[in-house]
């Protein structure tokens, strides 16, 4: 399925772009599976998702945990813990 992935703040700087459309293999159905799949892309991605820093996720603008299911057409965002206010 096809989804849109967004990156923000320190994570956007690490991957060096803010948005991409990706075609996922059939077995990538959750946020954690997506993290795993992205981490196979190379060092930048492996470093991002190696668990040393918290990477939060939102699906369609709602905060979710890594067990959340992804559906075709979803907008999935990755970002560091928020620091507004």
């Amino acid at each position, binding site marked *: 399925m096809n989804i849109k992935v967004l990156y923000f*703040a320190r994570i956007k700087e690490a991957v060096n772009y803010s948005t991409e459309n990706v075609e996922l293999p059939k077995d990538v159905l959750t946020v954690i599976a997506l993290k795993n799949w992205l981490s196979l892309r190379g060092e930048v991605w492996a470093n991002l998702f190696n668990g040393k820093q918290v990477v939060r996720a939102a699906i369609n*603008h709602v905060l979710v945990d890594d067990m959340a299911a992804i559906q075709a057409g979803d907008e999935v*965002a990755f*970002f560091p813990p*928020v*620091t*507004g*206010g």
Partner: protein
Amino acid sequence: MTVRIQTEDFDLGHELTSMRLAEHAKNKSTKKESIGALVSFIGQVRDMNDGNAINTLTLEHYPEMTQKALAAIESEASARWDIIDSLIIHRVGTLNPLDQIVLVAVSSAHRGEAFSACEFIMDYLKTSAPFWKKEATNQGERWIEAKQSDDVAKARWQNKVKN
């Protein structure tokens, strides 16, 4: 309930005074109690942080999500406490030391509700609304780290029943 995300500054006196007086007309027809209390929080860019002078503070956000996240926080506050109105104004973009960053204001008939709701909104905004701060000092730029104390502040509300 209002949420505004903007790059431009806001006029604090104007915002609070409008809110203080605005529900007047509405009250007469639909509300039993009129505004007696208005609690507000203003956050501003510090001039010093961790011993370094701040040159600028840049706020990034996730536009499609921000509005939704803040409106959800206001709804939750309004469900928990008997408040009359709430306002969140949050700036984004590059700000200077002592610039206003955020205004949260809550009006109610009695003060206890407004104090609780205003602090609740701030605690949730700090931990749930998609904003990220980057500081520029003479030592370079750095992303602000999320604070453990903000998670603790939010967690306090999760054990509380509506009062």
